[in-house]
């Protein structure tokens, strides 16, 4: 372990190379489906993301949605469950369906030469789903078991508790994870009717990315999906309230060797002029490994494997989320350091070096996350819900470059002030309530 006497300088960055422009076509099909197709060379694969609005205030919606997403691929248009899966495998393809409070996402990929046949199979699922009684029964039982597994995870318990505290018990965003009793009551008839109202092209977006000419991809989509018609209903859901903040809620999980901490508040949407500054402020605080929060409670104190803070964009609004799992015996000290870092970044200006570091990180990461076919497809599908697209991705680096240090400090002062956060801690209440109460009001 010999140390060199004269330190060597770290090599400077060379001139950045500009990314090649991607060829993109965008069209609204006759049935109202918005299609975005991007030619992206790389591997001979094509990525598909179909994003349908799925927001609803109906209390039965989460349970029905959970079973729908599992049962949707269990048969369609003359294919039984295994037949449909085998037909996909022949194309080198796989598709899956997932739902959350905002959207239903049908995602998949295939060998690029098989896009036409893949779209044909997807069309069958969209227009002639089976929802066979036995398959629905199988999936209902699986969803119930998987919910019990999910709720055995402290992070899930904490996120649910935080969402209820932030948005109120009855809001769809607080009921994302279904209740097992409601799932057990879901019938095939309900699924058919849910499919009929929500699985519609008008208002939905299809993203196709691969080494295929964009106009050809759009033509293939038009041909395959012509018989799929109708419009997704406009949701009537309550607006997001301002989260209450206030005392820290402790949820008891006896014997827990770690405490799961979650904090949140409302944030700015991507199109808000202040968003780039908030994005950079969040990175400096806890949004990347070189953040203040990570360097303090992980790399200096070893309280955790890693804290994270991030901005989540929902259809009804954006949200700043902090999460960390800390050892039970240092829960008090870890919260103390967290409040300290939040208070510090809210009260004192950030430095120019810090801003420069996160600026480059944000620009580089955006380029990296859209440099693969699947990454680009997922990014474009997520943006589509907000009416944004590839031009937003391409223009964002300039917005980050224009953001000043003062703007970042101002965003931190407004959004990272600890008094504005709503907080939940899931852990061994007997061990952690005392230390947490020393820092501020606690309720259980």
């Amino acid at each position, binding site marked *: *372990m*010999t140390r*060199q006497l004269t*330190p*060597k300088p*770290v*090599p400077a*960055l*060379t001139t*950045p*190379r500009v*990314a*090649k422009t991607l060829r993109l076509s965008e069209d609204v099909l006759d049935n109202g489906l918005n299609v975005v197709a991007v030619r992206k060379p*790389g*591997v001979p*694969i094509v990525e598909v993301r179909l994003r349908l609005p799925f927001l609803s205030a109906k209390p039965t919606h989460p349970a029905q949605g959970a079973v729908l997403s599992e049962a949707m691929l269990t048969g369609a248009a003359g294919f039984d*469950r*295994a*037949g*449909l*899966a*085998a037909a996909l*495998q*022949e*194309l*080198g*393809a*796989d598709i899956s369906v997932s739902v959350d409070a905002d959207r239903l996402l049908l995602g998949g*990929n295939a*060998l690029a030469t098989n896009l036409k046949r893949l779209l044909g199979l997807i069309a069958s699922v969209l227009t002639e789903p089976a929802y066979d009684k036995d*398959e629905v029964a*199988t999936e209902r*039982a*699986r969803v119930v*078991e998987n919910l*019990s*597994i999910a709720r*055995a995870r*402290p*992070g899930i318990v904490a996120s649910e508790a935080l969402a209820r505290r932030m948005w109120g018990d009855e809001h769809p965003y607080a009921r994302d994870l279904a209740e097992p009793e409601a799932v057990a009551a879901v019938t095939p008839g309900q699924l058919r009717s849910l499919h009929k109202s929500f699985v519609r092209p008008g208002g939905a977006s299809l993203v196709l990315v691969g080494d295929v000419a964009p106009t050809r991809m759009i033509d293939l989509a038009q041909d395959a999906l012509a018989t799929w018609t109708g419009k997704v209903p406009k949701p009537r859901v309550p607006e997001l309230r301002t989260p209450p903040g206030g005392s820290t809620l402790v949820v008891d999980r006896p014997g*827990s060797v*770690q405490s799961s901490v979650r904090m949140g508040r409302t944030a700015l949407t991507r199109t808000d002029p202040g968003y780039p500054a908030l994005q950079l402020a969040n990175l400096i605080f806890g949004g990347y*490994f070189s953040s203040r929060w990570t360097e303090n409670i*992980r*790399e200096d*104190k*070893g*309280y*955790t*494997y890693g804290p994270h803070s991030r901005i989540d964009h929902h259809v009804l609004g954006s949200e700043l989320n902090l999460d960390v*799992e*800390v050892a039970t015996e240092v829960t008090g000290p870890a919260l103390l350091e967290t409040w300290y870092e939040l208070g510090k970044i809210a009260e004192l200006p950030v430095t120019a070096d810090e801003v420069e*570091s996160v600026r*480059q*990180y944000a620009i*580089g990461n955006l*380029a*990296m996350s859209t440099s*693969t*076919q699947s990454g680009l497809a997922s990014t474009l599908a997520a943006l589509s819900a907000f009416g944004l697209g590839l031009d937003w991705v391409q223009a964002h680096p300039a917005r980050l470059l224009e953001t000043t240090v003062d703007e970042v400090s101002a965003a931190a002062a407004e959004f990272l002030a600890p008094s504005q956060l709503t907080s939940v801690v899931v852990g061994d209440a007997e061990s952690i309530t005392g230390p947490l109460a020393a820092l501020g009001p606690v309720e259980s």
Partner: protein
Amino acid sequence: MVPRPQKLPAPSFDLTHHTLDNGLRVVVAPDRSAPVVGVAVLYDVGIRSEPEGRTGFAHLFEHLMFQGSANLEKLEHFRYVQSSGGTFNGSTHFDYTNYFEALPSNALERGLFLEADRMLSPRINEENLANQLEVVKNEIRVNVMNRPYGGFPWIYLPSVLFDTFANSHNGYGGFEDLESATVDDAKDFFNRYYAPANAVLAVAGDLNVDETMGLVEKHFGEIKKRKAPKRPSFAEPPLTEERRATHDDPHAPIPAVAVGYRVPDPVGSLDALLAHLLLAEVLSDGDASRLQRRLVQRDHLVTDVSVYIGEFGDPFDERDPTALTISAHYPDAVSLNAILRAIDEELARIAQDGLEPGELDRVRTRLVSVLVRDMDAVISRALEFAKFELIHGRAELIEELPGRLAAVTVDDVRAAAAALQPDRRAVLELIAGGAR
């Protein structure tokens, strides 16, 4: 009618090899389609090489490699990568440990410098060791101790399937072992296993080959040559009778099972291994697979089932010995024997009757599609090149995999199924301590 088999894509990469005087093997693969590069260094040491009484040490040591180096203070490694617009990570496997960066291509030389600097001399001291010991304990708490099915089955199944300390111990480590690790242990481990001659460097993406080789020589060339350790054989004789064990999980709401079978040497008998790999896909890939149909859809015995090769699900990640694992969660604790019986029946059916028309072709097409898709990100590519070079001796093997898979016959898959006999398996039952 049997569908015509797909023409399988054959990926082709422009690979250049070079070995430095100090023994470092280098693989460079240009791809100028996007302005990003991947830099990966793999050291030929992993969980299996940990000394007795030091379980989890290879992983703890991996953390120490990020704590500063010859020319870098603590925290600087992370800051230099991220302020260049890049990301980094490392991971510890049974047979190797990797370190990598994905970077905008204008940071290529910086990435090479950072890897060379820690290959030269990581900053291992009491303070960094004490800090990372706590971080690693918290990593184990979050990934294993505080969640349902944490570490199941990769931490626990090897102790049933294998006998030697090297193959069977807990790779994440017991807290007592981790806490007894010393700075001297770490320095010895570095001197022994982190020699340039015991490593492979792969660089992929937006780069010029000659220029890159020059930069590699500049930054890694001056690291002094040390002898690479001779790797012992970790081979074990096959099981002769079924083994059973239980694992208590205080958080799990429903039981789970992992059934492990030894499979052929991935390096010495690759074609036989590939037959087992295709068998694994026939058994559990998608809703048309044999075990999904039987166990999930028909008999409702399990809520999910997966079959994979390699403790972490990567069939090319380990040398001999390695395992095929069938893993499932099931709602009814008394159904374990029925599940095992059904698995045996399905394996016997394949061994006796072979496969349905078209079954092997469709499963193979999907598998090749997945292999190709996984190579899209330049950092994945760099990691794969380095791994195939280190484990299999040839990065080019990746390009040949579709052809090698195409040569596997139904009879090869039947033979693989016939080899998975009850008396050759290890069964680990997870007892659900969190059941309502």
